[in-house]
């Protein structure tokens, strides 16, 4: 039991979203009542398990947690937001919206409720309203990189690549060490036909995460595109021809080596990859 509590605490601290683990560990704790031995931490566990249970579709467990929290903290905005999420999970979007609205009327700075409201609009299929709500939210809570990521996703759904790229730049400034974000930015740039910049970003991905396959594919695609295209006008900013060839070679070599490693991939995908690389 102590170990389960410890794991749950670690998950809370790292903000990882592993609902299956949380429900598996948390359910016996709550069902047996052992959770109450954790004192003040008990309520954090209740909240954590409630959200995980909603993720897993275990409505009975979620309801149990939320009710326990409700009796302990009646009228708390944090609990009401959980109730709103529960309503969302059961498809009652309008009612959930009313709850979030009420929380925000009491305290306009409530971050959790304003974030839920944005997602509610998205779930209702109103992307442009969701975008404007999220832009308003980010104007105040500028440092929330998850918000910027979400906004980038919303813009991508609307095929607004320039705006999505802007959002990803903000994410890069807030979380510069995460190669996944660099990859996303690089792919947006590639879609915008900005191969020169995309190549640099793909390089950054591979630099941060050695032998990142998707990054290597990106380098290969950008390099071959740039090699085929006429030499660009502003030669100063562009990568030199030799460098491009070297990059292309490097990516090809690494990809073949990665797919060739024993047990790395199925035979069919290995063949497909080699074929693709040869065509490029």
């Amino acid at each position: 039991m102590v170990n389960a509590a410890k794991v749950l605490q670690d998950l809370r601290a790292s903000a990882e979203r592993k609902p299956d683990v949380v429900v598996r560990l948390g359910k016996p704790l709550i069902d047996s009542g052992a959770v109450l031995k954790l004192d003040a931490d008990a309520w954090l566990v209740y909240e954590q398990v409630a959200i995980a249970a909603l993720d897993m579709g275990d409505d009975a467990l979620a309801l149990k947690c939320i009710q326990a929290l409700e009796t302990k903290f009646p009228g708390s905005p944090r609990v009401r937001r959980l109730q709103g999420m529960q309503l969302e999970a059961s498809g009652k979007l309008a009612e959930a919206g009313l709850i979030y609205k009420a929380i925000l009327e009491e305290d306009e700075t409530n971050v959790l409720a304003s974030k839920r409201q944005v997602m509610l609009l998205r779930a209702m299929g109103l992307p442009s309203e969701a975008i404007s709500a999220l832009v308003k939210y980010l104007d105040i809570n500028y440092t929330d990189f998850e918000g910027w990521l979400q906004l980038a996703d919303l813009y991508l759904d609307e095929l607004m690549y320039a705006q999505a790229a802007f959002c990803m730049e903000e994410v890069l400034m807030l979380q510069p060490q995460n190669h996944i974000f660099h990859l996303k930015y690089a792919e947006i740039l590639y879609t915008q036909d900005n191969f020169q910049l995309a190549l640099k970003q793909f390089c950054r991905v591979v630099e941060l995460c050695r032998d990142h396959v998707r990054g290597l594919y990106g380098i290969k695609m950008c390099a071959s595109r740039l090699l085929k295209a006429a030499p660009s006008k502003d030669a100063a900013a562009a990568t030199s021809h030799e460098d491009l060839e070297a990059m292309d070679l490097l990516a090809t070599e690494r990809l073949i080596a990665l797919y060739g490693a024993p047990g790395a991939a199925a035979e069919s995908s290995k063949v497909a990859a080699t074929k693709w690389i040869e065509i490029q």
Partner: protein
Amino acid sequence: MLLDPAIRDWVLIPIMIVMVLVGVVRHQVTVLLNGTPKKADLKSARETKALQRCGLLRAHGVHIPEHAFHGRKAFLSEAFEKGTYLKETNTGNKPRGNVMQDPAYVETMMDGMKKNMMNIVPQTVIMGWINFFFSGFVLVKLPFPLTVRFKGMLQRGVETHDMDVSWVSSLSWYFLNLFGLQSVFTLILGSGHAADAMRDMQAMSTMGMGAAAGPNLSPTGQPQDMHKIFLAEKENLDLTEHEWGLENVETRLLVKYGKKPASVLLDQKKAKIAKLAGRQATKEFAAVAAPSAAAANASRKKGRRQV
């Protein structure tokens, strides 16, 4: 010299118990007085976040390409200049009114006053009580000898020269309790209690303003002019030059995979420094040239006026 056991039962222990009880009551009253924490205001949050945003751009601008950096720089510069992020947009150049009329400021002041009162009143009452009833009492004999220097600390209120230093007077017993009961309170009330007299004393010496000050109050408690802070930040931003971290990423990657010798990177760095130095020199030249040109212009104008 012998001490009457009645002194122990009716003076020594009651003083200690009273002090503990007063500490507990003080804790409860402070909790009641503090009430709900003050709600943050959306606009002041936006104000502080804007400053943070500018700081981030200056620190982490390395990670975004040239065009992205310059776009943001221009936007923030203009926004700061115009005061887009200010809480009250029109107070920019209006002379500030009396601070005492600002409700937020008065509230912070009141909070500090309340805390100080909570500290002063009970301590004064207890000290008065001890002085009135037990002045001149000797309560304890310490089981160890002490040097004469401790006389002032242990025998306050009993002005005799000849008494041994290990005897403790009533007033000194009060002071010993005042400073010594801290850990007892931690045992009873848990950590972070408000019965701690020492902390209040420290708070009193700084007038209790340091901790109570809000986000846009300076340490002296005066509200700051955010527009000025924004302008200063704008200046900082204007001075920031963009240096892109991915300038030579291809070479770095090739070096990392051993396709190029590491010395290439070093050569690039040297070349860059040389280029920068060259640019610096031309700038200096321009700076020297500019004033003389301006002077020439001015003299020409003067000449025209004279004509």
